[in-house]
């Protein structure tokens, strides 16, 4: 049967009762059972600090003492802010990929770097990026519909933009309506299917993050009104986003994507990076806690636009660099190892004598994750999802 999306249903004038969110009926076969969570770390995470090559003598020369870190495998250690994830490492459910980058080189602009990361393209595509690799992946998944993939958060992500339908929801857009207001709102919107269906979905999604059976009271609504100026400025907490993502992934959703900001550590990295990494840790642990049995089928992939300079700068921070690290977690991982062709940190090993040298393409690892998880062919991956990519050898990231 043809795939049914919210758009199609609106065009057909279907009633709200037929919305996929309103009923347990799915209209298309769901494409497989695996779950992927993509987290974009905005601001260029310092891979050398997050996953520390403590066995490389160059590290102490470049960075001095970095304090206490958790030893992973004798050569790499984990930043203290990530150490709550160590039990996952022991279970083989945490991994890192090191000294990787997108094809982006030399200009070191966040905006261009993020565009290429999310577009999954090469330098020649700069300025011409219209859709994201995750959206193009969906175009290859038979039976993908709007609920298959969720983009979560207020920002419009290039990663999920494109021709394939992707559902969007920002937990901080949740409606706080009293029962009376909700009833009156439904009445006001009733005769306009576009508004009615969207509002019913919004009301249902607003409940998704709340504990079972909790109703919004009139007091909550007045409170929300008083607080809304504060709330509007602050994006949703990572736990809130992760909890919402898990609520969808436990159902028909197969892919969720969101971003975490705060990784641009030009100064006082010892103080600023932990805050950002803690948010990542919270997101991963919340997903683990709330995904239930689905965790075993899940891979979380955290990627950033580029790495940072190997040396600390004069204000205890790092500037924009080249290669960095990906952090992977989830029950689907063949983990407990750092995957890398380590380039070394001696002066001559550095890229332009300043940055960690990229030894492999970040996209190749993404492709090798997608290949088994969603049964996508290498030809489709290197033509459609990541045009022109050389996938290289299989690092066997997924079981």
């Amino acid at each position: 049967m043809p795939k049914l999306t919210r758009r199609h249903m609106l065009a057909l004038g279907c009633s709200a009762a037929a919305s996929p969110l309103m009923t347990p009926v799915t209209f298309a076969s769901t494409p497989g059972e695996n779950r992927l969570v993509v987290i974009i770390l905005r601001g260029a995470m310092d891979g050398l600090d997050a996953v520390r090559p403590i066995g490389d003598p160059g590290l102490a020369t470049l960075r001095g003492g970095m304090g206490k870190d958790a030893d992973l495998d004798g050569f790499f250690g984990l930043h203290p802010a990530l150490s709550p994830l160590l039990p996952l490492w022991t279970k083989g459910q945490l991994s890192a990929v090191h000294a990787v980058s997108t094809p982006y080189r030399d200009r070191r602009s966040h905006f261009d770097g993020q565009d290429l990361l999310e577009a999954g393209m090469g330098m020649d595509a700069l300025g011409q990026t219209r859709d994201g690799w995750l959206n193009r992946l969906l175009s290859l998944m038979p039976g993908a519909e709007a609920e298959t993939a969720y983009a979560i958060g207020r920002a419009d992500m290039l990663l999920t933009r494109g021709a394939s339908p992707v559902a969007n929801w920002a937990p901080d857009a949740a409606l706080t309506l009293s029962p009376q207001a909700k009833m009156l709102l439904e009445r006001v919107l009733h005769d306009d299917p576009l508004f009615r269906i969207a509002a019913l979905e919004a009301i249902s999604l607003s409940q998704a993050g709340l504990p079972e059976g909790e109703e919004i009271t009139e007091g909550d609504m007045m409170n929300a009104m008083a607080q809304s100026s504060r709330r509007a400025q602050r994006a949703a907490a990572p736990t809130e986003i992760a909890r919402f993502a898990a609520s969808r992934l436990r159902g028909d959703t197969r892919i969720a994507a969101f971003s975490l900001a705060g990784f641009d550590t030009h100064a006082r990295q010892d103080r600023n990076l932990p805050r950002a990494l803690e948010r990542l840790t919270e997101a991963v642990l919340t997903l683990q806690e709330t995904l239930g049995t689905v965790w075993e089928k899940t891979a979380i992939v955290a990627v950033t636009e580029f790495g940072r300079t190997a040396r600390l700068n004069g204000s205890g921070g790092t500037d924009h660099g080249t290669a960095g690290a990906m952090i992977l977690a989830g029950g689907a991982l063949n983990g407990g190892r750092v995957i890398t062709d380590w380039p070394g940190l001696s002066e001559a090993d550095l890229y332009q004598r300043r940055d960690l040298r990229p030894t492999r393409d970040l996209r190749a690892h993404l492709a090798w994750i997608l290949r088994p998880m969603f049964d996508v062919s290498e030809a489709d991956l290197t033509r459609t999802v990541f045009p022109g990519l050389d996938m290289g050898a299989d690092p066997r990231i997924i079981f």
Partner: protein
Amino acid sequence: MFDPERAEKRFGCGLAPGIAGPASAAEIMERLRAPDEAAAAFPIPTFSQVLPRLRGLQLARQARRTTATDTARAETLESYRALRKALRLDATRWGGHVLLRRALTRDGLRERLTAFWADHFTARGDGQLWGLVQLPYVEEAVRPHVTGRFGDMLRAVMTQPLMLSYLDQHRSAGANSPIGQARGRGLNENLAREMLELHTLGADGPYTQADVTELAKLLTGLTFHMERGFEFRPNLAEPGAETVLGISYGGETARLADIYAALDALAAHPATAAHVARKLAVHFISDRPDAALVDALSGVFQSTDGDLAALTEALLTHPAAWQPEARNVKRPVDFIGSALRALDLVPRHIPLTAPRKMDALFTAPMTLMGQPPGQPPGPDGFAEDDLDWITPQRLAARISWAMTAPFQIRRALPRPEEFARAALGIDIPAPVRSAALGAETRAEGIGLILASPAFQRV
């Protein structure tokens, strides 16, 4: 046929309790041809006026790197931060002025046309500084031309630093130009492609990849300097003539006049007329506009050599523009602007000098609604399709704003039944009337009216 309330909703910024709407299409055109009162009352500087401040910030930033002592570095950092903070504060006020213009103008169509053409010629600044100056770009290159010639607006936007930087034109050099040869630099086709695909002929227009490349070669030399603004630099220009859509431009010496000649030819092309006519009809009337209306607009564009006042007048006097059914959904800026208008504001209600409040009341909610101010998703601007705007998340953001923001902006809220008349006009749907009366608080009643399709559709 003409209807004063429909005119304000569909072609203006919405109904306002204290502002008399136009009595005829001729009156709308009269206001539009008169001096720009809203811009005078709520000024926004032009990009040229702001450029020296960007240059000052650039110098201050460079000074940070070149100072010798820690004390000097701290001083330069301090001055850089002060300059940046001042620019941020001003940019906040400009954003507020956009809303106040919409809330208080008697010439709403000018605001709508400015937004429409700014979107057609989308240019966006990225980064901490250039991200703040999209409105000055619009003020300089777009707004003065909304009743002028399309070709003049095209020329104005293509000589703006923000556009040249956004679409990478300042990085483009002829491979055989003096600079291209000396520094190994080459062509960037981005601006040429978007100019054909988005700004003039349209995505299905009659051009080939060869036209894109040739136009890109012809455009080499268009660039800007942080002190002098727009510049044409012949030593960046690819030597020789280029052929675009079958017409040859230029010769041995690179000249700006040849680029202008190509822009004029693109502006006058029938495909451009059809593309612009369709976009205008989609924006103001319906996602699926009446074919006769599009043809009529296209014809006027061609017969008047792209006279935008004549084009606008043709839209306002066409019967298809007045069909009673409201088919379009307001974009977030139209939604918020018209809500403020219906609330009968005075300027002091808008906290222009409090960036955090402005962000909480407008920027953050508009981002959740899908229209972050000054940050369109790509060179094709914001979506036109109603289905892109009324998604669960975006509608939730509209409803939340409607329920909470009016009370924060204006503590003394009007009675819901009076507000319904002010916001919706004579024709108030029965469910909206009863919901407004049935609400437990004034804020909720006003929120329900603003959340209604009757308010959000035009």
